[in-house]
């Protein structure tokens, strides 16, 4: 499995590095967030990188030719197309988690324990949403991810919008119950539920795509 994951990661990395959109989605929103949340720049950078890395990695890749060719080849093997999704999600979580660790380590004081889980879970959610929606429609995927990102700029408050603002998870979970009006446990619980739902949907979609690619003759 390690060799398979490594081979898929290599293909994803080559594909990402050659796409201008990857670098644009990775850098521009993160810089914008750091400028906007100037007072908490490291925290903003951490939460935005956890969001932006999987979004940039999976957008463009998941609806592309390479992934379709991979799915149709892997669907015929004993392992099926499942490992492909596994590799995609793992790279997104590892990349997003590692990137967000850099600014997190700059923060003074002790972080709430939820923070360490919320950042990778939000990466998992974003990657799974992109992998679920993009093979259907690139525009729809962009719209949903854009909406989730835009919610991060909504004033901090109670209710669903605050819990749905994915780049805001990590950011607001830092603040703790004293500063924020929502307990970090709520962010943690919400991120677990959202990630589980998105992974289930993307797995269903990938399995269906495997059959579809073969029926259509790749």
């Amino acid at each position, binding site marked *: 499995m390690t060799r*398979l994951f490594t*081979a898929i990661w290599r293909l994803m990395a080559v594909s990402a590095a050659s796409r201008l959109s990857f670098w644009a989605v990775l850098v521009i929103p993160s810089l914008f967030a750091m400028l906007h949340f100037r007072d908490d720049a490291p925290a903003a950078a951490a939460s935005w990188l956890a969001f932006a890395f999987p979004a940039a990695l999976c957008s463009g890749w998941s609806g592309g030719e*390479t992934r379709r*060719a991979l799915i149709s*080849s892997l669907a015929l*093997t*004993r392992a099926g197309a499942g490992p492909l999704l596994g590799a995609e999600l793992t790279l997104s979580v590892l990349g997003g988690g590692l990137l967000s660790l850099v600014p997190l380590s700059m923060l003074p004081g002790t972080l709430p324990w939820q923070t360490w889980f919320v950042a990778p879970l939000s990466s998992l959610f974003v990657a799974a949403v992109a992998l679920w929606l993009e093979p259907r429609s690139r525009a729809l995927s962009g719209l949903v991810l854009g909406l989730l990102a835009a919610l991060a700029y909504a004033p901090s408050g109670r209710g669903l919008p605050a819990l749905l603002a994915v780049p805001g998870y990590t950011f607001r979970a830092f603040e703790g119950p004293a500063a924020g009006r929502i307990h970090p446990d709520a962010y943690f619980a919400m991120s677990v539920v959202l990630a589980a739902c998105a992974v289930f949907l993307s797995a269903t979609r990938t399995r269906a795509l495997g059959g579809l690619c073969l029926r259509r*003759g790749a």
Partner: protein
Amino acid sequence: MTEAPPVLLEAQGLRVSRDSENEADLAVLGGSAVVLAGDSRRFLARLAAVLAGVERPWCGRVTAGRLGIPVCERRARTAIGFLPAGARCPRGATPSSHLGLLSAAMGMGAKQSREAVSEVLRWCFLYEVRRTPGEALTEEQNAQLAFAAALLHNPSLFISQCPLPAVLYRQLDDLRAIGKALVLTADGLGSIPPCADRVVLCSGSDIRRTVSRADLARLCSMAVDIRVSFCPALPRSAVEELPGLSNLVATDDGYSFSHPSPAAAVASVTALARANGRALTSMEVRAPAMSTLLRELREEQPPGREQDLFQPPEQEG
């Protein structure tokens, strides 16, 4: 005492799609090659996918391997090597890395994978381009790579969803010689590989009949269309003198006719032109379309006789 070759693919009561009218039975033995032939690429692709377990049939049961595993079960994948139509090397991958990835997905160890990939690349004439990016490969090289990928795990049954390039015909012979069962696809008579033992003639929605290669040759010779033109033009009465000629029709620049032996017809036409002091300006021998062959078969079939695709074709004489 030599053992009888095992049945490696068996389809019983098969109706491929809702439109199929007849149930068909088909068996493919180890060391034999069956070609699915017809005019409808769509139906052929679906039939091949059904036989490989990629799609479910409308009704019927398909099993593969010596153990008779239903093809839709995941464990049947080890017994089946399937070449999907239009398979391509992914962008950013090379033939070597693509096969390496697939071998990992098939559960091979690193050493075994290295050896298998290298061996299959050499065998499929891809070793020279093993480090060429996928996007730079030609159509033929992509087909060779898909063929290599389908056979990487050494399956006992190989099924192709599309016609194979002629460069792979030698490999098909090798596979047949070592006891593998082959199910190939041909969208015309020209794409039937030389290794084929039997040909399954298909209409747009049904398996019509299985014929041996010899029977197919006989059918084709009866249905072949020969077109000739002479300069100066030869009168019809002279052409009518050719022995065995039938369906003679005058065309814009000459004549078109059928003949039970196309080779003899070619010789006779050449001799006729020489005897009458004419130049043979063009001669075309057109292979019949699958639909023509199916029509010929229908006319040959005695009324009320059941088709049994499971039985080997009857020997003539």
